[in-house]
């Protein structure tokens, strides 16, 4: 029970920076970081979650659940923004379409898993 709560908590902790990253991609016309840096930071985030949890298995599970929580939040934030602003810059409107959300989330997730695996080699199973 305590472990389940821990996993849930770590998933929520992971979902926040992941959501920031997805929203950075949504607002990419205004980004301060170049887009490639966001993908690099995604690898760093995958590494950092395993390092912070100190357990590879919980870390990789927190990554999956965190991505799902963040992506569902991104979906609704995107849909609400599209409703509120009506006409937004074309690039942003493209970024909130369902297919773009899935592509963004899955490519960032793959990068995070790469970070998880790097952490497995560097830190070990924990």
């Amino acid at each position, binding site marked *: 029970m305590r472990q389940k709560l821990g996993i849930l908590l770590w998933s929520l902790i992971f979902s926040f920076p992941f959501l920031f990253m997805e929203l950075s991609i949504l607002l990419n*016309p*205004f980004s*301060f*970081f170049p887009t490639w840096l*966001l993908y690099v*930071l995604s690898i760093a985030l995958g590494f950092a979650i395993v*390092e*912070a949890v100190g357990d590879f298995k919980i870390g990789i599970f927190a990554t999956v659940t965190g991505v799902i929580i963040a992506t569902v939040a991104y979906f609704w934030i995107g849909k609400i923004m599209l409703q509120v602003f009506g006409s937004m*810059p074309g690039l942003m409107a493209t970024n909130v379409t369902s297919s773009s959300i899935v592509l963004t989330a899955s490519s960032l997730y793959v990068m995070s898993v790469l970070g998880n695996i790097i952490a497995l080699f560097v830190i070990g199973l924990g």
Partner: protein
Amino acid sequence: MNLSFKRTVFFLIVSSALFVNLAIQVARFNSLTTFLRNLKVDVSLVNFSANASGVDLEINLSGTSKVIQKQAFVSSAQLFLKIGSKDLGYHRIVGVEGLLAQFKGKSFSSVVNVRLTGYEANNFESGIGRMPITYDGYVVVHTFSGGHGLRSVMPIKGTMSEEGM
């Protein structure tokens, strides 16, 4: 699964970097929407000359916003003109090399030429000075931020003022 602060430092650094980037983006997005919301476009008739083949209108297209936006341009405008209730046609105004005007500070100004021929010219000549010219259409505003160009379409509508005529 024992938590130590030392191990979470890297996670916190990455998270805060992402948060700062997002905050910058939201601020930039907000500044663009404020700029566009406060942009008031004004269209005025500066001069016109009639000859046998038609009427040439010189129109001043200008706009002012309350906030400064760096690197903002107007690339084109579409105007649907009417004099009284009579049609003066639909005119697509494009600038030289795709650029109509650049914002200087908070405002832009550009003098463009519109040519009326046929029944449009007849409508204009019979109505000028007696009926107001109304316009309806949009201007295309381009802004550059963070390495991307953004195209925004601003609808405009109103009565043309006749400057110096």
